[in-house]
């Protein structure tokens, strides 16, 4: 028990020391949270229409007291590796201040060590078409990440789900675009026709 406490507080101390230097590295975070999301593997959800239920809580197999520093939990929607391919603006970086894996925040809640919490999230209309998983970060009182948990495995291969974003198109836009385009082309031919007529009349006079 005593060695475990020592190990635990040593780890916390190291993490705090890290945060004093400014950068938090993802690889130093402990996966102490259990996170699950309602979509099944490979399920396709629609932005603006469907809901995701996320559940998070402490992994009880870790020693008591590991979560002493946790004050807040932020649950985020994160891109799966396949949606990060050839897209540098979604790149994973170990330095969390530069990491762009998780760009959408689902919910922020104060940390509750005793029970699991959950939230029903209506997928916002600005979420693009991609493959995702859910991750939760635990923050200490300084606002620094100290732990995390995610709905997928360590390699980010299992339990991934798809979201279909909105197209942003509307029938009225389609019609307007068509009409203005036609107007543009017809104006040109109208002008050319008028010019030809004027040239003919000026030749006769």
């Amino acid at each position: 028990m005593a060695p475990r406490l020592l190990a635990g507080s040593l780890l916390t101390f190291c993490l705090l020391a890290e945060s004093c230097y400014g950068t938090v590295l993802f690889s130093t975070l402990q996966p102490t949270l259990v996170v699950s999301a309602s979509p099944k593997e490979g399920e396709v959800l629609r932005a603006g229409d469907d809901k995701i239920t996320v559940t998070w809580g402490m992994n009880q197999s870790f020693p008591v007291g590991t979560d002493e520093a946790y004050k807040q939990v932020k649950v985020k929607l994160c891109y799966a590796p396949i949606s990060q391919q050839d897209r540098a603006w979604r790149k994973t970086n170990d330095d969390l201040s530069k990491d762009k894996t998780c760009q959408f925040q689902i919910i922020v809640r104060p940390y509750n060590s005793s029970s699991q919490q959950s939230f029903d999230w209506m997928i916002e209309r600005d979420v693009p078409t991609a493959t995702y998983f859910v991750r939760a970060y635990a923050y200490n009182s300084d606002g620094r990440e100290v732990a995390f948990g995610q709905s997928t495995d360590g390699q980010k291969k299992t339990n991934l789900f798809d979201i279909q974003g909105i197209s942003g198109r509307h029938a009225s836009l389609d019609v307007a675009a068509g009409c203005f385009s036609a107007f543009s082309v017809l104006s040109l031919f109208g002008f050319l026709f008028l010019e030809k007529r004027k040239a003919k009349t000026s030749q006769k006079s």
Partner: protein
Amino acid sequence: MGESSLQMDSERLKFALPVDSELKATELRIFSVAKPHMRTFHLSWIGFFACFVSTFAAPPLLPVIRDNLNLTATDIGNAGIASVSGAVFARLAMGTACDLFGPRLASASLIFLTAPAVYLSSIASSATSFLLVRFFTGFSLATFVSTQFWMSSMFSARVVGSANGVAAGWGNLGGGATQLIMPLVYDLIRDIGATQFTAWRIAFFIPALFQTLSAFAILIFGQDLPAGNFRRLQKSGEKPKDKLSKVFYHGLTNYRGWILALTYGYCFGVELTVDNIIAEYFYDRFNLKLHTAGIIAATFGLANLFSRPAGGVLSDILARRFGMRGRLWGLWVVQTLGGVLCVILGRVGSLGASITVMIAFSFFVQAACGLTFGIVPFVSRRSLGLISGMTGGGGNVGAVLTQLIFFRGSRYSKETGLFLMGIMIICCTIPICLIYFPQWGGMFFGPTTKEKITEEDYYLSEWSSTEKEQGYHLASLKFADNSRSERGGKVDSVPTPSDGTPPIHV
């Protein structure tokens, strides 16, 4: 649709600006709208500006568009390449169209016909459709050629560099202005209530409408030549209609046109490439907001307000003292320095340094564009449009190549791409040393001393003796006379030979 009050006899036309024997203005008065010279000047740069705004309307909104259409970095790169590749051939075609139909009809037609591509950008729904709308919109950049042709027809040798530089520079301004306009319009539409993915679509109607309106203005208020419009002058016999095959032959066989096409690819082409990548570069590398990245990226294109005109003015100043040789040296020095600054831009790491170097780089690269078109009007008289088109097209080829090699997909980071592109600029500017005008000289050699070749010899060699008998070459003769100023400060009067001089192969 010329002004009905124009007299048929060109001698009786009164102009607000002082003119030379070809009725071209010898002064550039920016704040005047006197017809035909200054009115044409303003119409032509505004039309070109509108096309630039449309062609580069997508880049500042890419952070939104790439998510909406699920684009990869490769898709974005391909669309960027497509946006500048259409104009390669469009510029050649435009040059020829100007030679045959006049810049007024040629430019207005192109602007009207490419406006639909901009309207239809708002309904793009995939990487392919996005690429197609950018491709067709990009054709509108051929209005550059009509602008240069128009300026070369309206302004004399003394001020043609400045006129070309200001008109093109203020047109290129569109590439910078759009980086400011589009995010602003987008934010406004979003504040009104549209979602992100709808707001960018609506925003595209602004550049499209602007384009349509400028085409109207050009057709209603514009005029091809100081004396009138092509069609009317052709029908009255004042301007002989030229043959396409001859225009092609004399343009394509002039090696200077090809060299300038290459080097223009490494000032203007580079400018287009940077217009395409710079907003994303700042947004992604320094984690800025869309709006902020747009503002910084805009300063690159906005520098055109001064830098390209400055290049044109510098070309004219150098010509007054050193003639054509001064113009050539000026171009080589300025463009090489642009390359050096591009190399540095690829190396700096902080936001402040990046912005500073980018502004310096923009100045040199755009001034080089102005200096190039201080030389182009003198390469050929008969095929002026085609040479302008070749050079302009070459500019776009440079843009295609640099984007293809350095900014497509994820092979190089944007910083490394800039570094390598800078090196390529320095190398591809060297061929300017090879340009030689027998009557004026080149960078390293003076004019031919063995047998004195005059401006008339050079320009009249483009016409056969039968054509000369019919008097088709008279416009070139006048131009040759007016171009004597390209000899530089120490001009001694040389007797003007009339026709009868043996044809010289240039």
